[in-house]
């Protein structure tokens, strides 16, 4: 494993790369011990870690413990889904601070490091140790009727992440569910509601579910940003919560109009713990402030504090004693203290048991604003499918923006793709980006492929994966295109270019794609054993293929022969070949070149801007395989999807064209052009195919075997029978093509 030590904003940064196994753990321990640093808050960049074993985990935790003993800790950034899963299964997520990006990690470490030494104070029977955090800012957000014109209504369906740490009135789940709104307490880690009817019990959502289940908020007050101070409260005989908060207000920021408090406490009484959130304000001072401060008067169930200040909020009892010592990271403290097993019931602040030990995060909001105003506006144009839960995914992907307009890019088999124009919080238009939303497992595969095969190889097309987000069974990706023409970039599919540009331009785009953008893959082939029949079986992605051939074309997989009336010839039945010959040859291997291949390269996952820069996306099938796979995959696209047989006569001409394409004995031999029909796209396909085969020949150096190319081509010839957008004639054309390819394979393998 590579370990690089650097520094960001005064924070030591460890950048790890590769396998974090036992061998690497020894190196890590050595490097960590050698790193002489005054700083006790370190950021660790995990973005390039491909593997983490228990020994690696032990090393991380050992360092975490050492730093913790000095009042600090690690902040881990950018964990791959697999590494995250391993930490989750090890039940370590709660002991560690984990953030999405390295920038976040540096920020968290920097904030933790900027806390001043503790000041001691006595409030009644309690001792308080107050540590102020320099340079922190926070905001009080309110949600309620009239707080947003565009999303007006009885309630807001928002995620716990959007809400922050909040109290108010609402329900769990989408608005419109039967349940009546009740008292609500929400944090990014869990949410709780208690219905107004007597005898109601508290409902919770916790952990991953809280990211997925929306909350309907009628009114709420929420704290966001960083705390101004951290307080440890200690009172063996018990601290009354209301008195303690009143005392802290006077001690920390007596002239403030409003302060926010988040409390995690060990308590007396039959429930050993407590989580509370409260907003206290000074009515006199608030009246001198901006109009937005009037909202404070509307907070429900206000309590008059001895000082004359007022307090509103709520609390949840905990059935297990929460860990208080050294807690500074609110999210981490909540993850370990508030689980389904420990959460008790929602109670009023006046009903809280006295605390023996507590940690209080004190917020000094500099602004009160409408929460709805910060919600990203998602506009969708151009029709196409849009599901309500995708809003949440897009909001997560564009958390740094104020509004985003998505325009549907047609195409996409498993996923929907959108061009995105986003504006940041100050209304500046950001670089154009692309959003892809699809099933969570496909998206997760793409994220992994990006780490392994794209980010380290394919840099020259400037496509960068900026983020991913999940929401239930869906997940989305945000791609940025760097270094191009700024906000006015106009992106279109290679598909549109192929249809409308002059042929030389199209060929030049192909050349750029294969000999420049993707060259780092194909130009570094490995010579090794491959199992072609198994690797190129179309049944993995299209398990229903044989049934589709039978139902749409009437071609059974049980008859060995195929009557090709277009050519007046008997050919091998390709579907028989797939069902019976593929399994027989699945164990056969040959030595052949492999390289990283896109796996599903077609005209609808390459984007082109107005300066002919190319951007390749959709990497969920990307992995090392037969080096000619991508070239051979495009050939069926050009033949079956880009031509239009309108009559049986057209079909006949196309099959004759196909037979000529299959008549070559080597890939570098230009296939004869034999076509008497009237579709101009056929000549275009011929030129494209000639070029593709020449590149494929170049990638295989001195090899002359055609079978690997034919099998790779078959892999994407068969599935045409399953494509909904193809006509019956196009499917029949593909079936004839498959039969001709099978004939050639049988001849070349000496089986015919």
């Amino acid at each position: 494993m590579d370990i690089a030590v650097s520094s960001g904003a005064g924070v030591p940064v460890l950048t790890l790369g590769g396998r974090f196994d036992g061998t690497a753990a020894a190196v890590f321990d050595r490097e960590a011990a050698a790193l002489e640093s005054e700083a006790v808050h370190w950021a660790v960049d995990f973005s390039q870690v491909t593997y983490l074993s228990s020994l690696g985990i032990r090393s991380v935790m050992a360092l975490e413990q050492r730093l913790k003993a000095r009042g600090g800790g690690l902040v881990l950034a950018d964990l791959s889904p697999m590494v995250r899963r391993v930490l989750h299964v090890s039940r370590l997520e709660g002991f560690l601070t984990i953030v999405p990006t390295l920038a976040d990690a540096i920020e968290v470490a920097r904030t933790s490091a900027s806390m001043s030494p503790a000041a001691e104070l006595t409030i009644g029977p309690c001792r308080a140790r107050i540590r102020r955090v320099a340079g922190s800012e926070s905001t009080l957000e309110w949600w309620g009727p009239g707080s947003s014109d565009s999303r007006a209504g009885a309630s807001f369906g928002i995620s716990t992440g959007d809400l922050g740490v909040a109290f108010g009135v609402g329900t769990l789940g989408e608005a419109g569910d039967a349940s009546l709104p009740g008292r609500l307490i929400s944090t990014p880690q869990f949410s709780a509601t208690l219905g107004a009817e007597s005898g109601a019990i508290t409902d919770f959502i916790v952990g991953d579910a809280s990211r997925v289940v929306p909350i309907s908020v009628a009114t709420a007050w929420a704290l966001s940003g960083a705390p101004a101070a951290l307080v440890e409260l200690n009172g063996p005989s018990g601290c009354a919560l209301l008195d303690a908060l009143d005392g802290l207000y006077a001690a920390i920021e007596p002239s403030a109009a409003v302060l926010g408090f988040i409390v995690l406490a060990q308590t007396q009484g039959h429930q050993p713990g407590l989580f509370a959130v409260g907003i206290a304000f000074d009515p006199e001072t608030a009246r001198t402030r901006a109009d937005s401060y009037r909202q404070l008067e509307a907070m429900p169930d206000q309590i008059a504090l001895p000082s004359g200040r007022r307090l509103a909020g709520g609390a949840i009892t905990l059935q297990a004693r929460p860990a208080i010592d050294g807690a500074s990271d609110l999210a981490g403290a909540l993850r370990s203290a508030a689980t389904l097993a420990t959460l008790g019931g929602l109670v009023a602040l006046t009903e809280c048991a006295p605390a023996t030990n507590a940690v209080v995060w004190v917020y000094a909001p500099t602004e009160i604003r409408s929460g709805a105003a910060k919600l990203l506006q998602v506009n969708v144009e151009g029709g196409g499918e849009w599901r309500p839960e995708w809003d949440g995914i897009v909001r997560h992907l564009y958390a740094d923006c104020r509004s985003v307009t998505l325009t549907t890019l047609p195409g996409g088999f498993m996923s929907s793709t959108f061009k995105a124009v986003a504006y940041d919080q100050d209304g500046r238009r950001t670089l154009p980006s692309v959003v892809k939303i699809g099933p969570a497992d496909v998206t997760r595969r793409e994220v992994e492929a990006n780490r392994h095969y794209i980010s380290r190889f394919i840099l020259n097309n400037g496509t960068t994966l900026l983020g991913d987000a999940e929401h239930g069974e869906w997940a989305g990706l945000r791609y940025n295109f760097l270094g191009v023409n700024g906000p006015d970039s106009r992106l279109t599919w290679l598909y549109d270019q192929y249809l409308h540009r002059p042929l030389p331009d199209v060929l030049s785009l192909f050349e750029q794609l294969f000999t420049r953008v993707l060259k780092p893959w194909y130009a570094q082939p490995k010579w090794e054993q491959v199992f072609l029949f198994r690797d190129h079986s179309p049944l993995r992605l299209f398990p229903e293929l044989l049934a589709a051939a039978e139902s749409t074309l009437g071609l059974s997989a049980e008859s060995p022969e195929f009557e090709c009336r277009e050519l007046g010839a008997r050919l091998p039945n390709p579907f028989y070949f797939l069902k019976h010959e593929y399994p027989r040859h699945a164990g056969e291997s040959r030595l052949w070149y492999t390289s990283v291949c896109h796996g599903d390269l077609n005209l609808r996952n390459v984007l082109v801007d107005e300066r002919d820069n190319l951007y390749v996306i959709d990497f969920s099938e990307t992995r090392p395989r037969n080096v000619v796979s991508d070239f051979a995959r495009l050939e069926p696209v050009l033949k079956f999807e880009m031509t239009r047989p309108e009559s049986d006569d057209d079909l006949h001409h196309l099959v004759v064209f196909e037979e000529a394409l299959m008549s070559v004995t080597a890939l570098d031999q230009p296939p004869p052009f034999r076509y008497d029909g009237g579709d101009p796209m056929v000549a275009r396909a011929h030129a494209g195919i000639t070029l593709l085969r020449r590149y494929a020949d170049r990638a295989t150096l001195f090899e002359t075997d055609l079978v690997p190319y034919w099998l790779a081509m078959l892999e994407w010839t068969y599935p045409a029978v399953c494509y909904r957008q193809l006509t019956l004639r196009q499917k029949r054309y593909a079936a004839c093509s498959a039969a001709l390819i099978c004939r050639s394979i049988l001849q070349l393998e000496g089986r015919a």
Partner: protein
Amino acid sequence: MTPGGATLTVQIPGTVEAIRPATEQAEAWLSEQQVSFEAMYLASLAIEELVTNCIKYGYADANDHVVDIALCVEDGVLRIEVIDDGRPFNPLEAPAPDLSLPIEERPIGGLGLHLLRELADDLSYERRDGTNRLRIVKRM
């Protein structure tokens, strides 16, 4: 191992230095078999954790030992078999680690076996001919 699927067998010395090359060889081969990332991860984890356990606790003498590893991919299922000649040790009977303890208080070895148990779909152990044989099944 079932015949028919693609298989890879590797014999490595029971030494720390042998672990990394073995896991890399396994991953390279599994990557060609197009198994899921999780299955690939599990194979590496199995090799590393089991061989490490052997080296730390398994050998009662100072002789050279070997560990046999077999991987088989068939019908979307990865089977891993690890055979060592260390002293009898059934990982399935090893006590589960107390995951509520801070990491430094957890017993060594427990976490690795816990990860294997959690990530695998099926584990079986057999003591035969003086060897420990652990079979791991992962469906993809």
